[in-house]
């Protein structure tokens, strides 16, 4: 039998005690992994709103809320803005919401939609040629025709949530719309929405020639901040700009907080886990005092005894890592499967660094928790250990 198999075998001698230590550490690992998967997913979602091709600047009516809904701006501004220095392209969008009561007849799914805050669906009107400015580069199927009055495309999350696909129809504002395509941008907000021709939405919501926001794409060499300041100074008291970067920055700041919290939890887990492991391993060494005396009598070096106890401690925490990770992954998946409203917002991340971090935590707990008991075992006097009853 190799030394390694001996080390792996030993923690199973006292199964209850080892299991308790493993459960304690596994809970910590589970929290670290689950939080990491969720925040990681949110991060990549905000990151994808910053992707190339999409508009860098959103201009809104000064004084309107940050999301911008309803027709608050005159459509003519869309062309006016093109003459501003550094602006490459612009698109006017109209945002509207349709409540779930009228959307309950949606799709083939008989269950009541619980989608989005307050059960409302976000509908955006945009020129089909400008879809790339909201980050929609590829449409699965085809985009709507600008002149049509009954064509829409829908985001992947919305499609999955409502069990809809290309060719289905859904009822909005009392009218049937045909789904000509679906898309996926990676942004959880965009992917949960419906897009249709601007003029159609303007008609339906009585917002003729009115838009909610203007999306601005800057020229390749232009500085986004400079361009957005140019726009604001050209239209004082009329347009207020936000940059995608700033928005993402704000979201990331919030996520950064969760990140810090998750590190704090990791540290706490290391601490609590290490205390548990120290306790478990000291008990184990104490019980095996005579045995350690025998190992010394047959010629084992102090280093080997230290290595054995330390190894056993690391084996415990690595089992906890595996158990905790599996529970976290399965738990997050179950949560998403049985709660579509959550799955619309969260796409869990399986990034390697999340698991690497949890592994590091587990390993550190093993080393820190095992070091002292291992040292004690290695320093036992052989005669004292052999006399131990």
């Amino acid at each position: 039998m190799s030394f390694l198999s001996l080390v792996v075998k030993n923690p199973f001698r006292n199964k209850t005690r080892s299991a308790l230590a493993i459960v304690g550490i596994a809970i910590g690992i589970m929290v670290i992994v689950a939080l990491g998967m969720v925040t990681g997913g949110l991060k990549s979602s905000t990151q994808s709103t910053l992707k190339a091709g999409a508009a860098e600047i959103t201009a809104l009516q000064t004084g309107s809320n940050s999301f911008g809904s309803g027709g608050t701006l005159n459509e003519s501004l869309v062309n006016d803005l093109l003459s501003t220095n550094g602006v490459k392209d612009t698109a006017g969008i109209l945002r509207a919401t349709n409540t779930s009561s009228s959307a309950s007849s949606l799709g083939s799914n008989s269950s009541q939609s619980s989608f989005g805050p307050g059960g409302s669906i976000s509908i955006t009107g945009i020129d089909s040629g400008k879809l790339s400015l909201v980050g929609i580069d590829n449409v699965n199927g085809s985009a709507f025709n600008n002149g049509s009055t009954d064509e829409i495309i829908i985001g992947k999350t919305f499609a999955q949530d409502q069990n809809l696909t290309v060719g289905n129809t859904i009822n909005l504002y009392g009218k049937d719309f045909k789904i000509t395509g679906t898309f996926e941008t990676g942004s959880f907000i965009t992917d949960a929405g419906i897009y249709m021709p601007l003029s159609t939405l303007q008609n339906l919501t009585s917002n003729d020639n009115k838009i909610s926001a203007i999306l601005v794409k800057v020229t390749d060499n232009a500085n986004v901040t400079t361009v957005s300041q140019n726009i604001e100074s050209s239209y004082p008291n009329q347009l207020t700009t936000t940059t995608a970067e700033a928005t993402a920055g704000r979201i990331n700041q919030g996520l950064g907080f969760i990140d810090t919290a998750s590190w704090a939890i990791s540290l706490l887990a290391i601490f609590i886990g290490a205390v548990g492991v120290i306790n478990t391993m000291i008990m184990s060494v104490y019980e095996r005092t005579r045995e350690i005396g025998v190992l010394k009598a047959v010629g084992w070096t102090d280093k080997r005894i230290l290595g054995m106890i330390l190894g056993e401690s690391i084996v415990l925490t690595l089992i906890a890592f595996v158990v905790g990770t599996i529970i976290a992954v399965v738990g997050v998946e179950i949560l998403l499967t049985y709660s579509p409203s959550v799955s619309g917002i969260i796409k869990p991340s399986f990034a390697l660094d999340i698991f690497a971090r949890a592994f590091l935590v587990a390993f550190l707990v093993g080393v820190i928790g095992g070091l002292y008991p291992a040292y004690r075992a290695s320093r036992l006097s052989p005669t004292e250990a052999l006399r131990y009853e």
Partner: protein
Amino acid sequence: MNNTENVIEIKNLKKSYDHGNIKALNGIDLTVKKGEFISIMGPSGAGKSTLLNMIGALDTADEGIIKVAGIDLMKTKKLNQFRSQEIGFVFQMHNLIPNLSVIENVEIPMYETNANSSEMRERALELLKSVNLEKKIEQKPTKLSGGERQRVAIARALVNHPSIILADEPTGSLDSKTGEVILNLLKELHTQENVTLVMVTHEPYVGNMAERLVTVLDGKCKTDEKLR
């Protein structure tokens, strides 16, 4: 005296415990020839176990001379290497590791050698055959009788080809019939493997099976007689 012939040389060896209040060894002298089988007897507390522990380098003496297998134990720093290569212990209690199988227990001392897993297994099996336990190699020690456990302990003691077997009351926890089997086995293997055997015992009939009988009293050698 020929040094190569004497595997143990002890002169005026002293060891005290409890800040000098207990003189466990009080100037003991003992010389053992290579391949000899000697038994050590004496009343409880006389220092017999302490003497064995000194020979096996489980503890260090306070003063005196102790050379075992050519190594000066008062000077060497590599005590574990010495124990691993030169000494095999058999204790009164078998001291086997309960979660390991019989053969794994016998392999334990070989981790400090260069042997790989299959060499370890091969050697352990060889010894378990010579103690008639080849049918129980995968058993856990808890399933064995006292005599069988002690046979495993003997196999473990011999596995690294030691020059000396130190047995501290190896039959102490066995009934006399089983004790006799163990004793005969030790005697047989000592001849077969050409290893020196030093055995502590309380029972005169056991002590009388040796080639030489040393009695210890108050940390000193009292008598030393050749039996055969």
